[in-house]
């Protein structure tokens, strides 16, 4: 505010507003008679205003807390997540440059709608100490590339005090039920223009940064690490600095009670990228981890399938042009290109290849396997021929065991954090009493069951299933040969299987119903369902999502044949 009078008591020019509308001196807390109406309500960017609400919410609260804004909380969360990712091996650039610049851009974009500033004003997130009253501002929006490539000295995003000025219309009544200043506002305002920040969105930010840097971590990997506890998400707020007190509506914002959902994080990421007006992301080329050729290799290994299948996946990828940089690279805001789920796509390619080679109609693959078994008897090549039946038995066994383990983990998942939460101060004692009882009971029963709470989380690893060729029991199929199911045809090894069945003849309109196809287990062969469920487990995603991409690939692959024959013919001759 343009109120530059000196304080009568301490001669400072350091004014704040009580919610009664009076000015008070922040240095000596002297309240004036001057009220807000008298002053020009145009806000000028280089003064900082804090509105203070009544009651116990003084600048230094009695409980040792300070004022903090919701976005500060999220900033903290992002910082923690970035640190964890760095510990997992992601390059430090992610934390120091990319993620924090994305965040600043977000704040800038969203704050424009947040406050009553005239257009063109910007607010920068800077750690400002209490005493300074002036904040630098730039009259024009810095160029995005400039922001993104900047390595600022204050790259560390940690702030101890509220950093940004906000002229949010916080009224006294709303701020009582939240520890943050604008917590209750969060749910009230019309959220249409700006993307309101949520906990799942923090993961969208992380993924966006990972994608920008083309780090070797898919979204399913990221989410799996979150669930396994390697990346802070659930209960991360308990590591907020002491001064940031959390209660009331804050709990709704920061407390998570469900695992992050792939589709949600994925879609939000794309929304975010568009919202931030980001340019085309760095190209995904065939040397990138996220390229289908690379991911297929990884998933083939994990699924214990022969390495030779990689040739086939590359052929499919090439044939339908999904290995092109233009197809794979994200261009935010471009509605005509399909948003690519790299992990799902790679899994779908493998499934299509399996269908090409083995048909997977619950008959042919078993016949073929018997045939390969026969040929194996006379096999003098040193490498056994791949037999589907053997592979199925090994994988089914492992998958069932892992799934059972996972189900038990889900049932045993602990959601509550060390730090007890209360919605409001009057519920504090009740909550603490409950907490004490819970701890007592847990101790009592833990002693009884004799189980020791595992002190450490398992080490994070990129592979969930691993197979070693050193095992003499023959349970590793990487080195197996596909010759058992191929035949020579005009000098080229081709699949013996001449047929193919389409998952669906017609694709749905994704825009209207959200899916390309609708998967129902009973309508498909069990072998198909089996391979779907294998990758569904590995990627921790619903089989229907993978099925969608399988349909997409099939339609690209058999495009010509589909256009030629107008009548329905679900079995196609290749």
């Amino acid at each position, binding site marked *: 505010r343009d109120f530059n009078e000196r304080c009568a008591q301490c001669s400072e020019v350091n004014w704040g507003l009580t919610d009664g509308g009076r000015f008070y001196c922040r240095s000596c807390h002297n309240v004036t008679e001057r009220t807000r109406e008298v002053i020009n309500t145009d806000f000028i960017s280089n003064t900082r205003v804090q509105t203070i609400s009544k009651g116990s919410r003084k600048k230094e609260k009695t409980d040792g807390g300070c004022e903090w804004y919701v976005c500060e909380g999220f900033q903290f969360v992002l910082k923690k997540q970035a640190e964890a990712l760095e510990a997992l091996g992601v390059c430090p650039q992610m934390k120091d440059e990319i993620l924090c610049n994305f965040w600043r851009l977000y704040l800038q974009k969203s704050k424009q709608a947040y406050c009553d500033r005239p257009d063109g004003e910007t607010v920068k997130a800077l750690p400002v100490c209490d005493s300074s009253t002036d904040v630098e501002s730039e009259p024009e929006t810095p160029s995005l590339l400039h922001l993104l490539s900047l390595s600022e000295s204050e790259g560390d995003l940690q702030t101890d005090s509220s950093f940004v000025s906000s002229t949010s219309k916080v009224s006294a009544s709303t701020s009582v039920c939240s520890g943050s200043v604008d917590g209750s506002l969060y749910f009230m305002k019309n959220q249409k223009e700006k993307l309101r920040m949520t906990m799942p969105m923090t993961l969208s930010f992380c993924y966006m940064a990972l994608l920008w840097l083309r780090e070797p971590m898919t979204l399913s990997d990221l989410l799996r690490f979150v669930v396994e506890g390697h990346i802070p998400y659930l209960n991360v707020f308990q590591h907020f600095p002491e001064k940031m007190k959390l209660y009331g509506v804050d709990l709704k914002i920061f407390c998570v*009670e*469900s*695992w992050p*959902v*792939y589709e949600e994080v994925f879609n939000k990421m794309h929304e975010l990228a568009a919202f931030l007006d980001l340019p085309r992301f760095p190209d995904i080329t065939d040397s990138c981890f996220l390229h289908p050729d690379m991911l297929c290799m990884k998933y083939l290994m994990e699924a214990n399938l022969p390495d030779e299948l990689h040739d086939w996946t590359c052929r499919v990828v090439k044939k339908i042009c999904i290995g092109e940089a233009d197809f794979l690279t994200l261009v935010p805001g471009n509605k005509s290109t399909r948003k690519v789920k790299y992990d799902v796509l790679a899994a779908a390619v493998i499934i299509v290849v399996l269908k090409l080679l083995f048909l997977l109609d619950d008959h042919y693959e078993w016949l073929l396997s018997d045939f390969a078994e026969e040929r194996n008897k006379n096999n003098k090549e040193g490498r056994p021929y791949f037999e589907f039946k053997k592979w199925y038995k090994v994988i089914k066994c492992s998958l069932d065991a892992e*799934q059972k383990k*996972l*189900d*038990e983990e*889900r*049932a*045993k*998942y*602990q*959601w*509550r954090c060390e730090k007890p939460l209360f919605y409001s101060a009057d519920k504090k004692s009740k*909550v603490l009493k*409950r*907490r004490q*009882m*819970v701890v*007592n*009971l*847990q101790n*009592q*029963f*833990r*002693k*009884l*069951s*004799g*189980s020791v709470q595992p002190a450490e989380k398992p080490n994070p690893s990129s592979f969930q299933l691993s197979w070693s060729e050193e095992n003499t029991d023959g349970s590793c199929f990487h080195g197996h040969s596909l010759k058992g199911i191929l035949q020579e045809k005009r000098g080229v090894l081709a699949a013996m299987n001449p047929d193919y069945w389409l998952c669906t003849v017609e694709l749905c309109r994704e825009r209207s119903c959200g899916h390309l196809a609708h998967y129902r*287990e009973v309508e498909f062969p069990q072998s198909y369902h089996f391979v779907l*469920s294998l990758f*569904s*487990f590995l990627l*921790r*995603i*619903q*089989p229907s999502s993978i099925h969608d991409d399988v349909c997409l690939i099939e339609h690209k692959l058999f495009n010509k044949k589909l256009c030629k024959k107008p009548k329905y013919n679900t079995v196609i001759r290749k």
Partner: protein
Amino acid sequence: SSHEHKLNFQKSKEMCLNYIQDAMLQKQWKRAVEFLTFYIEALEKDFSREYMGPSEIIWRIGSEILWHHSHNGMKEFNSFIEQMKTLAIKRYLKVCLEHVFHLLCNGLIDEAYQTLSLAESWRHGEQTSVQDKEMKLIEAYRGLLDYYSWAKQKHILLEHGQDGFEDLSVEQEMHSCFRKAAVNLKEIIKIPGVWDPFVKCYVDLLEFYGDHDEARQVLNEYAYNSKFPANPNAHVYLYQFLKRQGESKKSLISALKILHDSVPSHELMIDFNTMLQKSKKRKKHRLGLEVIFAALDYAGWKENVKAWSCLAKQLKQIVISEKHLDWIKQEWNSRRDWWPAFHFSRYLAKRNWQENESLSYEKALVAGILLGKDCKYFKYVSHQGCKAQVKRFRMLKKFVNKHNPVYLRISG
């Protein structure tokens, strides 16, 4: 099966509960405890809209598990229950009551008594009146335990006989137990319900102290007040009391009549039949026949020699006198289709003869009368009996042969 990869708190706890249930059903207590430990945190979440919230679930499951699987027995159980009591004030008395039951099952009568007394003195604002029913039960059970003490004192006195001062304190103790018990027992049986053990104990007390009028009134109320649920035992108690009091046959019969109507297979039906037979009235005899036939409709009576002998005796009398053959006809009409297979098959003939000669004798007599001399049961048994040269079987054979025309009249 498709596995959901989404997970939220609610679903996670549901799954946990399923695992606990499965483990308990298979009596894998250690595994059940393991999962229960992970379920406990559900207490911190408000489930107030659910039918059964986590605190109740944990109480019930935890009790069951600790009952079957605990390292230091009752101590652990008790400490757990104490925590459960504080967890939900709305269930305080119910938890106390169930705790008492567990203690009694373990023979810890004194601890049970203490818990009951403690619970009786509990007051908690409006909760006291809301949990009024549980309070009444608590008082009633304390009364029951007071009766139990009384009975112990009585036993001591009776053993020692009344000699000397040392028994004076026992006697005083006994009377004080009586007073305490009587008050609470009387209260609970006022409320419509099934209170068999309480009624029995109360009546026992009243009889001992000579208050027969009160006892009679209590038993009549219990048996005949329509507000109380129909309870055959009520009539049994009343009958037994009247018998002890030496009441007239008339009142005894009326008490047992109701029992026959509601539970035709009751074990007292033999007494009933005997009583009716002794009467001089024809109507009573008719009823007696009905009663004994009805009792033998039930599988539990198939090998009851006394019952068969009652029936045999009565049928024999009727056949000899040739009066009231229509009674037999009436009773036999609804039974002729199935009694032969049920009671008088050849297989049963063999088995009865092998296992219980008297049984086979009585049954053969009945069969001979109802089904004639040519029926398989009679033929087999009488043949075996005569072969073994048992006198009464020869008499039996003669009797049935002689009265065969009667059979023809019955069956016609």
